[in-house]
């Protein structure tokens, strides 16, 4: 074949590289193997507190609507689905499948044994310092189907 050249500018494409889910999953498995289960949660708490600090501030100000807006955007961007039920004191996310887990299963990537902590620990950490708490009510390891609950803490 002749010499071939490809030139791209950033706006030419949308930023959506789903193989990154496989890399994160591999990293979680590595931490699990080397340091144990609690280290996975510790890493995810540190990441969430650092990177999602602006979101956490927003949750402190706007409470559940901030979480609702965040996750509605996340699942829409990933081509996923989420059914949202919301009251003043509770937010329920029913996720029929995880776009991350689906991509990894379809492309043969290893799904880490503790991949569900990217939901559970991240949600719990997002609620730190707010009047709310998070619970992973259901989670299916094969598909990532989940029910995620955010609710007002008992005072």
């Amino acid at each position, binding site marked *: *074949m*002749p*010499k*071939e*050249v*490809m*030139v*791209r*500018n*950033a*706006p*030419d*494409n*949308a*930023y*959506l*590289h*789903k*193989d*990154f*889910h*496989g*890399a*994160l999953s*591999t*990293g979680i498995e*590595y*931490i699990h193997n*080397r*340091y144990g289960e609690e*280290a996975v949660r*510790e*890493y995810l708490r*540190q*990441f969430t507190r*650092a*990177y999602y*600090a*602006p979101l956490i501030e927003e949750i402190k100000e706007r409470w559940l609507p901030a979480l609702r807006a965040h*996750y509605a955007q*996340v*699942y829409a*961007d*990933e081509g996923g689905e989420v059914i949202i039920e919301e009251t003043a004191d509770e937010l329920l996310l029913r*996720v029929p499948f*995880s*776009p*991350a887990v689906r991509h990894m299963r379809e492309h*043969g*990537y*290893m799904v880490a044994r503790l991949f569900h902590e*990217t*939901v559970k620990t*991240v949600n719990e950490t997002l609620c730190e310092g707010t009047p709310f708490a998070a619970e992973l009510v259901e989670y299916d390891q094969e598909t990532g189907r989940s029910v995620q609950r955010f609710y007002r803490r008992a005072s």
Partner: protein
Amino acid sequence: MIPCTDFIPAYSEMFKYLESRDGKEAVVDFWTYLSDNFLDNLREEAAKNGIRGCWNYWSRTLNEEAADFTMTVDDEEGAFSIVMHHCPSKGRLLAFEHIEPYRDYCEHCDLLYRRVLEPMGFTYEPDFSEVDQAKCSIVIRKKG
């Protein structure tokens, strides 16, 4: 759920976490693990299609990452190159005001890809002299 668009900060923060546990050695050990366990698609492309396999692999990944680049392949010369005018990963990390990139963030590329390609008979020559501006380049050649 952590969306794939938030992977790069999660990756950078993972390097920091590992370094806090066991120093740089732990970070390098993870990169080695990642190269061995995550890059089968590059390994398979290069094994099946030679230097053209590099083009096939990076054609998909760099477009999905919305990178700003010039990529060239010359099958007769057995040469492939990427000039990254603006790396979407490092650029994203540099743009954040509330987190700092891991100090040696860009080193992962060198280890991950070199580890796959050199044992398969390729040379891998990066230029990381401008990574502080999210710019770099690599040249890969088939030996012989």
